[in-house]
């Protein structure tokens, strides 16, 4: 039996600018007006109070500030929010993981010690690349030297759990460039790296540019070679791949992120935040809720007292829950545990999906130690595998 715990995700919608590949709920703000910040923090706390009862009786495992750029908030605001969350649930015995997403910028750098004092113990730094050309292509606000300074400052501020975000497959970037990025990242001995292949999400300026032929993302072959190189180089640097895009030193896997792949409950508050609930009465296979993606609409509802009911609700059906268990489990290195799947759904994965055998024969899956896992090639073709599980 798993522990009954909860993770809390807090979405801060502000960004200095909106990146052209981004499809998150964000609002561009160069400087945040203190009154607007106070209003946001109050609204987040209001929503927290309204939603926490649905997760009553659980212990608190993780807090994650994502965005947007949550580090644009003043440390006092972060501290206040952490306190509010802690006030709702008991700690679960293990040290709480409190992550803050951070961009390399002067303002944020200066706030690092204060964030640490506020209780943040893990930073997820949006480095993306150690190449100015790539940063420019990605439309990022920062330059490489700022990334270096931020990483150094993070260490000096005493952060012992750093995660770096890297993006590969950026137009203009070649394999050597990607490997150089990984080398530079490893120089900081990060505890965790998230390395994402650039995906062109529909409706983003990037998608438009690609459709117009102005941008050419890395082709299939190059993208594959990059992913393999990233995986090998990070592995050699001591970071083990434990999910499609996630690498960690032993003991430093992202506990909050892992909750999603393990389908453990997460309360998400703020604009566009998603929450997941464990099976309950009326929702035998769990449920999802989502907030509105417009800041004004979300604020209006929360301030109007409607905090308990996010506008979007989805009760999962058994087949939906099964496919999610399948493709989320297979995203990770421990893989899809056969017995646990059987305990939950009453049948073994290979009975549920005869295609698993075919995928094994095709060399995309392997089955060992009671679990189904992606092979080396399978990591690269995971969506081809997942398509067979819905």
């Amino acid at each position, binding site marked *: 039996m798993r522990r009954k715990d909860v993770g809390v*995700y807090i979405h801060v919608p502000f960004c200095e600018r909106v990146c052209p590949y981004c499809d998150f709920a964000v609002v561009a703000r160069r400087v945040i007006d203190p009154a607007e910040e106070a209003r946001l923090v109050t609204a987040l706390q209001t929503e927290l109070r309204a939603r926490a009862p649905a997760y009553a009786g659980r212990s608190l495992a993780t807090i994650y500030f994502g965005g947007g750029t949550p580090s644009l908030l003043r440390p006092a605001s972060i501290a206040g929010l952490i306190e509010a969350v802690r006030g709702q649930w008991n700690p679960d015995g293990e040290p709480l993981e409190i992550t803050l997403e951070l961009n390399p910028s002067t303002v944020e750098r200066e706030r690092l010690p204060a964030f640490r004092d506020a209780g943040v113990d893990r930073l997820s730094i949006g480095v993306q690349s150690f190449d100015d050309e790539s940063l420019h292509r990605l439309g990022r606000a920062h330059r490489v030297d700022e990334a270096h300074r931020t990483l150094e400052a993070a260490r000096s501020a005493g952060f012992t759990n750093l995660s770096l975000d890297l993006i590969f497959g950026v137009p203009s970037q070649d394999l050597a460039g990607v490997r150089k990025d990984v080398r530079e990242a490893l120089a900081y001995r990060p505890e965790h790296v998230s390395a*994402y*292949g*650039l*995906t062109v999400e529909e409706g983003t300026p990037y998608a438009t540019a690609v459709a117009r032929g102005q941008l050419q993302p890395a082709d*299939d*072959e190059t*993208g*594959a070679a990059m*992913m393999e190189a990233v995986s090998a180089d990070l592995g050699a640097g001591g970071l083990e791949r434990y999910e*499609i*895009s996630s690498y960690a030193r032993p003991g430093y896997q992202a506990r909050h*992120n892992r909750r*999603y*792949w393990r389908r453990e409950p*997460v309360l*998400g508050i703020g604009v*566009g*935040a*998603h929450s*997941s609930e464990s099976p309950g009465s009326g929702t035998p296979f769990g449920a*999802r809720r*989502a907030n509105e993606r417009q800041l004004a609409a979300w604020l209006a509802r929360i301030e109007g007292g409607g905090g308990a009911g996010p506008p979007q609700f*989805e009760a999962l059906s058994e087949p*939906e829950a099964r*496919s*999610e268990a399948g*493709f*989320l489990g297979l*995203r990770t290195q421990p893989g899809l545990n056969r017995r646990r799947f059987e305990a939950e759904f009453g049948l073994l994965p290979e009975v549920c999906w005869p295609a698993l055998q*075919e*995928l094994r024969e*095709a060399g*995309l899956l392997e089955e060992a130690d009671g679990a189904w896992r992606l092979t080396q090639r399978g*990591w*690269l*073709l*995971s*969506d*081809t595998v*997942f*398509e*067979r*599980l*819905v």
Partner: protein
Amino acid sequence: MDASKIRNFCIIAHIDHGKSTLADRLLDATGTLGAREKRDQFLDKMELEQERGITIKAQTARMTYRAKDGEDYILNLIDTPGHVDFSYEVSRALQACEGAVLVVDASQGIEAQTLANAYMAIEADLEILPIVNKIDLPAADPEGAAQQVEDVIGLDAADVLPVSAKEGTGVDELLERIVANVPPPRGDAEAPLRALIFDAWFDSYVGVAALVRVVDGEVKKGDRVKLRAQGSEHDVQDLHVIDPHPRRVKRLGAGEVGVVICGIKSLDELKIGDTIVPAAPPLPDALPGFREVKPMVFSGLYPVEAEDYHSLKAALEKLRLNDSSFQYEPETSAALGFGFRCGFLGFLHCEIIQERLEREYDLDLITTAPTVRYRVEKKDGETIEIETPAALPDVMEIATINEPTILATIHVPQEYVGAVIALCQERRGNQRDMAVHGGRVQIRYELPLAEVVADFHDRIKSVTRGFGSYDYDLIGYTPAALVKLDILVNGDPVDALSLIVHRDKAHTRGADLARKLKEFIPRQMFEVAIQAAIGAKVVARTTVKALRKNVTAKCYGGDISRKRKLLEKQKAGKRRMKRVGSVEIPQEAFLAALKLGDDS
């Protein structure tokens, strides 16, 4: 009705020479159409006809005309299609008429169908009224066209009436000539009823409507009648004339054209060409009917979604009620599932039926490459006819394959003769002869039907910048070095793509097909080898490389539901793919490969 005041005529011409537009003017001039219902090519009633600007189905309209002699005449006009695929419509219309207005486009001159239709009318003993149309066009050469009429068809150039169907010039004179020159019907009003059924259609309210020409006697509502060949008896429930909308009448007399409704529920129970006679003896002789039309082009029709099979079947049944000239029977393909083998009069006919199915019945279809009917002589002495490559016996059993051969008559201005000859040679043609009339040349070629079904007409048009035209007659079967070309993906044959081709063309054809497929088959988990083979011999080969990367980088929070829905959508897309062995082939690949014939 006084038969001496009736004139029955049809309008015949090459495609696009302006028959339907002329019909509009005649309806105008006789005040048959209300001002508000006027519309270009009024008689092209099908949506598809209007969109494509061509007539597919012959249509009749009855008009009343007060001639210069002060008398009222009943004019019954039949507008006919010009495209060669629908010439059986023309041949039937001719049987209901005493005269034919032969339209020649003054800017194009005589073309293949002008001749073919004119000869058909002459053979049917019709009075021909030649006109040259479109004289308003700057490029029009009415005198030249009239001279061609004299030189080629043998009608006096001086009798050719210049007309502009667009502007109405010459239309009044044409009406007078119709009254003066088209003979009145010759039937015997006193004799027992004999009415020729020359068209029929299905109406969901009244059942089968038979369009007849009363030759002798008369038919009244309530009469007990018999279908001469069918042998069945019926009560006449209703009679209509079409002027230009169906209007109920009490009787139809000798010489009149109208609709007979007698409670028949299915077109199978009534044969076009049959004679309606009184049920009571003595039984009059049947009128000469029509030669049965035989499909020339065959193709498999498959629903894109397997679950649409029954809808397709129902749609074919219904369509056939209104077009008995196409045939169908169930067929199964390993690659495409359950479908139907259909026979058509020509490629345009095939296209039209397909489009009507998709449009009027909201079906998505895959059509396999059109083939013709081959005659296979086997070594054991047996001869079989096959209409699908799948039916071809093993090479070892075949003595000879004979293919249908046509005699194509091509009309073209002199400067394009070279291009046309090159095209015919490329299509394995043998030149029969060549004749020059004025600036135009008539070339006759013997060609395999298979080489012309798909795109020959378009190719003629394109190599002659629109000035060439062609018509054909089936002349027999000729032995040819034909082979079955199979397409294989990872070793499994894709039966729907098999073709019967000439040995000399198998290689290029196979390579083209393989290349086209490669374009459309998405990369899969494994490499996909695409081969074109004759028996065990591979003549072309290409590969679709294995998919290397297909990853969603991030999957947190809100991504999860979105990802699941995306996967479901992709899976639904996959379901539309056909699986051959372990290879998934999208519909588009079939469509593209099957279309290849059009532009090769």
